């Protein structure tokens, strides 16, 4: 069996073989560590926080509105789950320098490669439509005509990636991620019972009424919205595009862990916003309506911030999901695919991104578009795709031919990951049964 040896030549070769590099000499190991972490920081936070997209906002506030703070413990449980899955992606991306789609194509053959790509593109595109639907909804509640605001949002999203600089895109996107701290301000403003929040975060419990069909599906929706298939493709491609080095593994892990913590905290704050609606007996169909109806009890800040953060969530989701599509398509087609390339050098990559964003925005503007069906399709397809996507990730992380001893999964990794896969499969089967025979699950 052929086994690859990991070879590192970065900043450690001889003068004869190294060109000048841009860098900074520091005299403190501590400062060196901090600065190195800051240069690596980005993909982990972005992949996690972009998953708090429009659909996630809707799911978390609905969970808060229906069950108050009683489901906060599920978010805490999902923190290690989401970290362990994305940590595998980090190792695979750094070791191979290739995207996830390219690896599936190479190691599992054409059928699985095509299936993964088509499924990813389909789910991603449907998700993009829901992102623009949320932008449209929030804009209409802010008295901005969607016909004007949605195309404007699409143009901004396209301009974000067209600078030909990975770093510029990353800085803007990290800034947008940090804006989501506004959810913490909203959560503080609606003044939840602090003791109850802490208790329900750390002590698992079933809400009053017991395990019902609606609770089961809400839990599946929370799991499905916290861990999404596009995240696997996005982070691996992002790491490959940023050219993270073998020595960056520990910093990329830290980035991913901090991203997971940040995301779960923000998700919890979204649930607390929903909890405020429950406390004030506000009923709503979507988060924009909730924001409007909370105005009387919680003030203008909560209303405006919720609407703006809904748009921010959708923008973040759109740029990350569209990029995961464009990277995956570029990898499989063999096109140049890097944010660090100008559009003339990677036309197929940028065109895929532009088509994804433009078409999704256009569909939302069609009067009478079946948005409810699209949302249903997204949830079900993502739920079906996720366990199988993680199985491929798990098999790739046990591929010693590719990863060698240094990056391959340890036995404890496999135990944790197979447990996660089994749980996700059970949830996926419940979802499948609900699709196949909805009458088996009476509303309760």
């Amino acid at each position, binding site marked *: 069996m052929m086994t690859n040896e990991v070879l590192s030549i970065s900043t450690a070769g001889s003068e004869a073989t190294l060109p000048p*590099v841009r860098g900074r000499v520091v005299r403190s190991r501590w400062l060196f560590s901090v600065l190195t972490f800051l240069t690596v920081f980005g993909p982990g936070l972005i992949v996690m926080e972009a998953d708090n997209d429009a659909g996630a906002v809707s799911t978390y506030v609905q969970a808060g509105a229906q069950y108050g703070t009683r489901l906060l413990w599920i978010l805490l449980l999902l923190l290690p789950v989401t970290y362990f899955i994305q940590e595998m992606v980090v190792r695979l991306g750094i070791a191979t320098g290739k995207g996830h789609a390219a690896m599936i194509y190479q190691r599992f053959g054409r059928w699985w490669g095509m299936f993964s790509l088509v499924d990813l593109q389909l789910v991603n595109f449907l998700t993009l439509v829901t992102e623009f639907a949320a932008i449209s909804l929030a804009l209409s509640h802010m008295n901005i005509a969607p016909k004007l605001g949605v195309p404007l949002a699409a143009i901004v999203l396209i301009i974000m990636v067209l600078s030909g600089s990975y770093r510029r895109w990353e800085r803007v996107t990290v800034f947008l991620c940090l804006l989501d701290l506004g959810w913490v301000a909203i959560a503080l403003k609606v003044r939840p019972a602090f003791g109850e929040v802490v208790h329900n975060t750390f002590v698992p419990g079933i809400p009053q009424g017991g395990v019902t069909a609606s609770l089961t599906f809400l839990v599946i929706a929370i799991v499905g919205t916290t861990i999404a298939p596009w995240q696997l493709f996005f982070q691996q491609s992002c790491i490959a595009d940023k050219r993270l080095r073998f020595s960056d593994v520990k910093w990329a892990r830290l980035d991913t862990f901090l991203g997971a913590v940040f995301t779960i905290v923000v998700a919890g704050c979204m649930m607390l916003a929903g909890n405020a609606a429950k406390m004030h007996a506000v009923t709503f169909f979507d988060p924009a309506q909730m924001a409007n109806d909370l105005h009387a009890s919680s003030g203008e800040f909560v209303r405006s911030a919720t609407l703006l953060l809904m748009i921010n969530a959708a923008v973040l989701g759109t740029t990350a999901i569209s990029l995961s599509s464009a990277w995956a398509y570029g990898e499989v087609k063999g096109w140049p695919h890097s944010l660090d390339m100008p559009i003339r050098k990677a036309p197929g990559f940028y065109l895929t991104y532009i088509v994804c964003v433009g078409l999704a925005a256009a569909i939302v503007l069609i009067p009478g578009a079946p948005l409810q069906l699209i949302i249903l399709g997204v949830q079900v397809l993502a739920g079906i795709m996720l366990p199988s996507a993680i199985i491929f990730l798990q098999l790739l992380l046990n591929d010693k031919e590719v*990863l060698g001893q240094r990056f391959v999964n340890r036995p404890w990794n496999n135990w944790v990951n197979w447990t996660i896969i089994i749980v996700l499969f059970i949830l996926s089967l419940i979802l499948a049964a609900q699709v196949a025979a909805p*009458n088996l699950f009476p509303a309760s």
Partner: protein
Amino acid sequence: MSVFGLLRPATVTDLPENHFVVVHPLDDVREQKVNTSGLGTMPMTASVKLSLMALRGYLIVMMLLVLYHVLDLAGVFGPPVH
């Protein structure tokens, strides 16, 4: 203004003790990653192959089921009964 300046190779390779050089990954020399070009598809045991075949069947059935369900909800097969 960037805190990173252009460093000569000698500065990078011959650092005095307790001096460290921070380089952004995109500014660094390209690393040679693991070579996967000649590997082809992954060798699998019969049980893994069988499991993947079962997974393929499950996914095809589920995709068709979802398609049917969505078309049903859209009223393609007549008015929904539930």
